[in-house]
């Protein structure tokens, strides 16, 4: 209800012309979920590991640019929404490739990060996106430990000086909050695809509605052998890998 109220205020601001292009995404109160497996749209991604070239970082760079993700050199302070990791480490020995493939938030249907968050700052939307309210996060880092994939990052220090190419298109975060991939929900509402999949030169990343049998992701899932990360944990990831 609080969020719906904030959305309304932002909406009024937009209507009155004060914020012609509001940075904050507006979401209706019905946009977050009661039950994960209900019908409707469920965003997902299929990554073709065979088409992902070694050494290419186009998706990583696009993500960093479009969301003001800071770049820290110290590996212990890293903030990443998407990164590349050895395929075997990511998916286990059944994965044919040992080269690095992209890994991002899985937007699980049963997200353990959401169960861990004491303030409801990380929540699952009706469309399957697991989103973070940066203005509500208290920085306790429970979600980081709960995520079995290590896809939540924390701003150990002020991220703003570490943003290499700042963009006014998306808000920056502050020291002391967590952040992670949002499936580019800000771009989705403009009718655009996520920046990583839209900029992949090899077309290795396909984004779409998992619940729509005619969508590109559903067709790929039907015609290929796919894997998900740590399926044994029952988190039901929405990111699939063709091996």
């Amino acid at each position: 209800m609080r969020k719906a109220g904030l959305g309304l205020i932002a909406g009024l601001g937009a209507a009155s012309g004060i914020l012609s292009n509001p940075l904050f995404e507006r979401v209706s109160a019905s946009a977050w979920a009661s039950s994960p497996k209900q019908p409707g749209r469920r965003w997902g991604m299929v990554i073709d590991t065979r088409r992902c070239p070694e050494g290419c970082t186009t998706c990583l760079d696009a993500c960093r640019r479009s969301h003001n993700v800071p770049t820290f050199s110290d590996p212990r302070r890293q903030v990443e929404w998407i990164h590349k990791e050895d395929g075997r480490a990511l998916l286990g020995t059944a994965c044919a490739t040992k080269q690095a493939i992209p890994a991002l938030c899985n937007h699980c249907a049963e997200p353990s990060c959401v169960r861990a968050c004491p303030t409801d700052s990380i929540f699952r939307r009706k469309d399957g996106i697991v989103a973070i309210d940066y203005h509500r996060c208290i920085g306790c880092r429970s979600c980081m430990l709960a995520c079995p994939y290590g896809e939540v990052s924390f701003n150990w220090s002020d991220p703003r000086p570490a943003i290499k190419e700042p963009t006014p298109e998306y808000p920056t975060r502050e020291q002391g909050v967590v952040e992670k991939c949002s499936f580019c929900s800000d771009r989705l509402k403009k009718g655009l695809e996520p920046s990583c999949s839209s900029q992949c030169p090899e077309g290795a990343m396909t984004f779409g509605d998992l619940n729509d049998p005619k969508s590109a992701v559903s067709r790929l899932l039907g015609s290929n052998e796919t894997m998900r990360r740590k399926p044994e944990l029952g988190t039901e990831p929405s990111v699939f890998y063709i091996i």
Partner: protein
Amino acid sequence: MFEKALKGNAAYWTWITFLAVLAGAGIHGYRIQSEEGLASTGMGVGAVWGIYNAQLPFLAGLAASALFILVPERLMKRSELSAAAPLSAFLAAVAAAMSLLFIAAGLGMPSRIPGLFMNMSPSAPASWHAPALMAYLVLSLSAGWALLASRKKGTTPPRWLRAVVMLAVPVGFALPVIAAFMLAVMPTYGLWTSAMLAPRILVSGLAAGMGLLMFMVVAMRRSAGPDEGKELVERLAGYTALAGLASLFFIGLDAGTAFLGNLPSETYALRLLYSDMAREALPAAYAPFSLLPSVLLVAGAVSVALLLLPVVRRTGGMLAAAAGLLIAISAWFDRGPGLILAGQASPDGGTVYAPAMPDMLVTIGIWAGGALLLTALLKVTISVRRSREAL
């Protein structure tokens, strides 16, 4: 009544000053941390929770231990425990207050602390932690204070105190359960997803609480005269020994399950604690501490064995008090740093947490603050006792 804490001899004020200096160092550490962010601490990717969160399970168990004195004393008319009742209530209050401080110290966004109470997410166990601690702090502090006030006046404690204790029962028992369940939502850490976690926190907290209480009662008898019988110390020593024995049994059960099942995450954490591995995994400066877990485990076990001897319990002197203190320290490591820091280490490699200067200072500062509060409350208790004797 509190003015009694402001009168004391030179030794008392030296001790207070010492603790205040340490607490001041903690404030200094916190200033560094809030300026530079949590990047200034030893925490980071691979060691997301550090020494702050490492205190929480132990303190939850310690806080809950007061129920094992307050419930029989208030609700079952076991008057032989009366002398220990205000002390145990104060110990619980200090543990709850320290827990709240440690939670606050570990947050990236301390300005949003009200969110912990206003934006609760009932399905998340962690969400109940701070509210339960706050409620328990109020309940235990008011119980201890009311008990002491009635002692001072020589009247029977008020009847509403029974309601306070009854209310404290569900809240107090919830503390170890919340502390365990907020770790249980983290599926990849074997040490944290055991159903034994809540009972282990409760039982080792009980051993620690009774051990500390015994230590305090023996110390008070030495400073304020032996007005309470030896039976109290003997009884507390018995509780400590039994809880310690149960705790050791539970440690064995968890370790047995881990090694018989060859569970990778659990066995890794246990090897890290109790074998040579820590020496290599820890930063060089901390290498001398790699034996600490084993030493504390053995010290705890020996102390439990000592307290199982009837002669030690009956004598109830410094030997029993020292055993109680050692059991408390051993339980602190077992359900504190041993659980959170070693439990977080990954078999796939990566960094093992070691505190940096700010988090070390803040931790020492909060412990000193807790000791300061406990000292003041003990001082009031002793003064009340002395003024009763003077009558």
